[in-house]
């Protein structure tokens, strides 16, 4: 079972990213559950989308211990990494996250996610898809084919190419 947490601020499209990730897993023939935490008032503040993926039946819908945490804001990085264990993976958007938690982790990727979206595609809007590309590459939790299909199912008509490009750029962030 893979347990992934995508966190950041309200406007970064991470809820959608979580949904796409789960849908990609379904396309891979796996089971997946996506859930999210709403702030006490659903306004501003941090946002968190969680996905668990497995070949088996999934009962408990929440993350018990995350394997992967994506943090796209400093506050999220502080708030949502506490339960990452030593064998966990942390991915941050280096533009927003200056301070990495002082704990031992299997792997930390500090990636210019939003920068890449802006620089490569002209819109920070694609940052969430860039992040998905990176996650797929790092974890292999979903196939690139399914991820691509899942992304294209969800995005507005006319933006397909840019989104495919975003996935690619995300993957390319991982050398």
């Amino acid at each position: 079972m893979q347990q992934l947490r995508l966190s950041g601020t309200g406007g970064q499209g991470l809820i959608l990213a979580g949904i796409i990730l789960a849908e990609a897993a379904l396309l891979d023939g796996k089971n997946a559950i996506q859930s999210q935490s709403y702030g006490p008032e659903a306004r501003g503040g941090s946002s968190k989308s969680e996905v668990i993926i497995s070949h088996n039946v999934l009962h408990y819908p929440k993350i018990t211990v995350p394997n992967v945490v994506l943090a796209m804001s400093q506050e999220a990085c502080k708030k949502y990494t506490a339960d990452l264990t030593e064998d966990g993976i942390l991915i941050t958007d280096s533009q927003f996250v200056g301070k990495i938690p002082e704990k031992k982790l299997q792997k930390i990727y500090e990636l210019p996610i939003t920068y890449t979206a802006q620089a490569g595609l002209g819109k920070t809007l694609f940052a969430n898809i860039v992040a998905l590309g990176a996650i797929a590459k790092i974890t292999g939790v979903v196939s690139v084919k399914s991820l691509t299909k899942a992304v294209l199912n969800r995005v507005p008509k006319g933006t397909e190419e840019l989104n495919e490009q975003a996935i690619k750029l995300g993957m390319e962030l991982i050398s």
Partner: protein
Amino acid sequence: MELEEIIDEYFRAGRLPHIWCPGCGNGIVTGAIVKAIDKLSLEKNDVAVVSGIGCSSRASGYLDFNTVHSAHGRALPVATGVKLAEPRLNIIVVSGDGDATAIGGNHFIHAARRNIDITMVIYNNNIYGMTGGQYSPLTPTDSKATTAPYGTVDRPFDLYDLAKGAGATFIARATTFHAKLLSDVIAQGIEHKGFSVIEAISACPISYGRQNKKGSAAHMMKLQKEHGVMLAAYEKLTEEEKTDKFPIGVLYNAQAPEYTAEYEKVIIRAQKGAN
């Protein structure tokens, strides 16, 4: 006082930043309220702010008065209780367009009918902000809302007509663009003896603006500038010119018996009868 001092004085220490989204007009309206209170030099202990539930209703928690964050739509009954039980307090009700005119509509017309001395500031962002963008009774016809994906067919209330029809004795309107006017009419509303309604037109760039393609927060404020016209000038417009304008300023101001003052008569009569 400088604005920063006013904020420090009337906002509770350590509770900012507030929860509202980037660009949300609620901060401007709330600022206008404390500026009005400052202008009138009200004693903080003698002010009670009562709100309902909604983004706007969160304002009560930031303000350093006697404050109540009540239930959705119920600010006015609670405020009526505070006022009638302790008439010397200045009561300000903070409410959203939904809170005030949807679920709270009955209390609104009855507070107006009683002409009880409460100043109600309605943060009108034309939407249910807190729950993410459903239409309210003040959403213009043909708007998009999460519960009106094909556009609204409901006619909105005209808050002025409704308040007046129900008996309110002071009605004013301003926008977050017209921030000084807003704080001005709030101050006048507080001074008015009776039920005062201030419609504060406030931009919700997130739950209303996005769906309706209204652009950035700043752009939404510019739209307010474009469409809001001072009453005197508005009245001089032709009917056609009026169609995409709305009047701002004090729209109605009348005197009528105020409820808590009238109630004192009941006590006098009862005590006379009892002796």
